[in-house]
């Protein structure tokens, strides 16, 4: 198999799949002397700057439309509703504190979590149950799903910004105080 043939095959494989495709799935199709990662890298290069690009997300690669075309495409492609702010905050808390129980989420937000919010995240397949905490009442632990990574175009959870970096908020720091670096980090749960 030539390199060009490998490229064709990888292109077809990734194009056909509804979910991100891992290098391992490709390597099963390739002869031993061809490296799947290298083939995918060459494929990405070929699509760079095109209307459809190869991006890494959720443990594999996937073709996606270029972000700059979104305004035009939204006119013709059907778009699901965006998640409301509360759901996004809850999702962020679950992403950063996972595995986490419902009372812990409520503690961090300082308010109760509505059925609707949890439902919307479950239904969007962004979160899922991750076992139980071995503490009184054995509450369910929640965490993010692989689809969460795919949805936001993240390779893995380590791509989330570190919490201490998030705290350098440009909105709070008015004026050119940007260099101020804070090393300390709020504890995830500080009980009263």
């Amino acid at each position, binding site marked *: 198999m030539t390199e060009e043939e490998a490229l064709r095959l990888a292109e077809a494989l990734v*194009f056909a799949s*509804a979910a991100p495709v891992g290098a391992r799935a490709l390597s099963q199709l390739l002869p031993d002397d061809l490296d799947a990662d290298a083939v995918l890298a060459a494929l990405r290069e070929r699509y760079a700057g095109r209307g459809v690009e190869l991006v890494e997300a959720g443990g594999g690669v996937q*073709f996606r439309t270029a972000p700059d075309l*979104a305004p035009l495409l939204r006119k013709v492609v059907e778009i699901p509703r965006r998640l409301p702010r509360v759901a996004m905050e809850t999702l962020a808390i679950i*992403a950063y504190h996972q595995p986490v129980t419902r009372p812990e989420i409520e503690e961090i937000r300082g308010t109760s979590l509505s059925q609707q919010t949890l439902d919307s995240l479950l239904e969007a397949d962004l979160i*899922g149950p991750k076992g139980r905490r071995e503490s009184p009442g054995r509450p369910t632990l929640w965490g993010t*799903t692989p689809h969460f990574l795919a*949805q936001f175009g993240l390779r893995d959870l380590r791509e989330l910004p570190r919490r201490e970096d998030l705290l350098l908020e440009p909105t709070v720091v008015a004026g050119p105080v940007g260099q101020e670096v*804070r090393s300390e980090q709020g504890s995830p749960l500080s009980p009263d």
Partner: protein
Amino acid sequence: MSASDTDSLVLRLEGFEGPLDLLLDLARTQKVDLAKISILALVEQYLAVIEGARSVRLELAADWLVMAAWLTWLKSRLLLPEGAETEEAEHAADALASRLRDLSAMRAAAAWLSGLPQLGQDVFARGTPEDHTEIDRSRLALDLGSLVRAYLQAMRRRVRSRRYEPRPLTLWSVKEALQRVAAMLGSLPDWVSLEQFLPEGFGSVLERRAALASTLLAGLEMARGGAVRLRQEHEFGPILVRRAEGAVEEGA
């Protein structure tokens, strides 16, 4: 904070997701690093907002008031001269600042996530993915998430389709007791226990007790009207009934 700011906060109180949300917003208006906010100033602002809101709407949710009470305690301790209690308060103030930092970080994380190009919103996957699989019926894609979602769906649909029907009342009423006592009274020669008037066949202890209470009420009612006399020999003893001939005697 100026008076007009306070007013607008009062009006916006319903827009806040609980006390912590409001506190964070107030901390932001201090326009400094969250690590350097003045807890005292924050407490005063919060209390001012809550006080203002109470003058407009008396019914303020409990968690707002609980937070207000806690902050009042914190403020009083922070104002004390140096001592063990101040130290305790400083710990509490640190914990509050730390919670605000964490919430703030999660806000920022949510904003960061929202800023990412989202699949199906900003970038699109292939609209017509091809399935080259020969469908292998031996394997099922089962995950706990979809099981739980399915359960929620079924239960929610059920709740929507359900109607409330009150259970039929099975308790022996005072009215029924009155009729029964009145009907049986004529055939009674002498004092009899009140329990003799109870109908037969109770399903539960509760029903029997309710019937006894109804019968007692019926007896008292009839005694007041002079139709019967009631007597109780000693405390918790049986209550006796007979047809009245003269003066009415009160039950003990």
